[in-house]
């Protein structure tokens, strides 16, 4: 019993820390991508904007404060080992961690209820938030990723239920359209996740999870990898640039996740992250030892 209680405490503490890492520490590869973009900026406006972004991310890391005031609707990706001792209880622990993180970091209270207003705790009155993406895996470990994705870049997400006859060509052009239409609205440079196949909800899910790949990590299928690079190149000739000032890189990276589709459907989900692409991961063992990771796998 006492061992279990202490494991619960470890998970809660680690989850609070992951939310802190996510909100305050821009992943190193994203930070380096910003520096590369700065080196390519041609106009004053572009240089001023990307410099502000880098300075802000540096301040956040040094002062352990949220780099953006919008710390999003909190979500957790959970991969639960067959032999990890806690399962359904994880939700309660992570809800408690979210409440604590909201006060301690602090996170902005974002869970607005349409009837009851904002309870101020990032949990809300009706369940569902924080949101959990749950998978079960072999082994005895728990793998957690915390995400604090801002609302501005969620507002530019797109779902397309395309005619199958349009094929991959249509799907990838839909992604280019989404980036072009987003323009400055979601705080570029963007990370673009493209989910193709599955169904209307699945493709959005695949697209969101594509944002969790390390920058530059291509799809395992070399054909898809070529398409990821092509969409990135295509988006980067659009004159949007950092914060939409019209010059410089528009996207940081593009990642595609593919699934089988129904013969009558071609679902395409586009999920974008703002420059502040925020997440934090950890692997927790059943004995309570843990390790923080930039990326899982």
């Amino acid at each position: 019993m006492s061992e279990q209680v202490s494991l619960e405490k470890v998970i809660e503490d680690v989850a609070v820390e992951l939310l802190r890492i996510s909100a305050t520490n821009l992943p190193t590869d994203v930070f380096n991508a910003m520096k590369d973009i700065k080196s390519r900026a041609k106009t004053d406006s572009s240089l001023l904007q990307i410099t502000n972004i880098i300075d802000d991310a540096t301040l956040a890391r040094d002062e352990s404060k949220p780099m953006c005031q919008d710390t999003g609707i909190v979500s957790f990706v959970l991969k639960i080992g067959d032999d990890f001792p806690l399962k359904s209880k994880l939700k309660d622990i992570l809800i408690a961690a979210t409440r604590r993180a909201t006060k301690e970091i602090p996170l902005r209270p974002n869970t607005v209820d349409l009837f009851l207003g904002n309870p101020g705790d990032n949990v809300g009155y009706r369940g569902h938030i924080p949101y959990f993406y749950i998978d079960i895996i072999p082994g005895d470990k728990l793998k957690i990723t915390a995400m604090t994705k801002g609302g501005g870049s969620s507002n530019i997400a797109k779902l397309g239920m395309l005619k199958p006859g349009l094929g991959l060509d249509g799907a990838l052009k839909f992604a280019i359209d989404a980036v072009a239409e987003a323009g400055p609205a979601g705080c570029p440079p963007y990370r673009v996740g493209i989910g193709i196949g599955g169904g209307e909800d699945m493709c959005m899910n695949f697209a969101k999870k594509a944002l969790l790949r390390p920058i530059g990590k291509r799809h395992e299928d070399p054909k898809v990898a070529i398409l990821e690079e092509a969409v990135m190149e295509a988006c980067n000739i659009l004159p949007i640039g950092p914060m939409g000032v019209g010059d410089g890189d528009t996207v940081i990276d593009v990642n595609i996740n593919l699934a089988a589709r129904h013969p009558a459907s071609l679902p395409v989900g586009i999920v974008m992250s703002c420059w502040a692409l925020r997440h934090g991961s950890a692997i927790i063992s059943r004995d309570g030892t843990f390790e923080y990771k930039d990326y899982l796998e």
Partner: protein
Amino acid sequence: MAIYKFTLPLTDEQVKSLKVGDNIYVTGKIVTARDDAHKHALAMYNKGETLPVDFKTLGIYHAGPIMAKNENDEWYMVAGGPTTSNRMEIFQDTFIEAFGSNLIIGKGGMGARTTAAMHKFGAVYGMFTGGAALLAANQVKEVVEVHWFDILGMPECLWVLQVEEFGPLMIGIDAHGNNFFTENEKITMAKKPEAYKIVEQALEAVK
């Protein structure tokens, strides 16, 4: 394109001198106002009620900050970058007309209604780096007043802030009817066929 440093409120001459693409830094008082604050302010104005602040003298900042109290029970800004301005497009023209504000600060640009009002009444839109919440907080020197906290909550209420060299703000809409963002959107859309071509070639290569 030029870079200027101004003290708030901006004079009519300063407003007129600015062109889209210029960058400015401002020192003086600004007030946060987003969706609910715009709605509430206009509702009070329409009922003839007295507003708690004079929006004419303040830069209007589209932002919903994280605020906290220090050990002396005084408010300070933890993080406070701009929010997406386009949500205020439905209010901004009547807001400018009603209150005479001449500097709107936000991110992402605004549309035709705001552009027309800025042209007619003499105002500019300055874009602060989206997400740069700590830079913004560092440029806030004092929380002067807070209004409507009890009714609108932390992100939506009016925070009157003394700021120093707040910026850079890229002028996205000037007082001469120019809108950088809507013009750039046209250029972006015109570029799409060329972007499509890159994807078509890649698809050909992986066939």
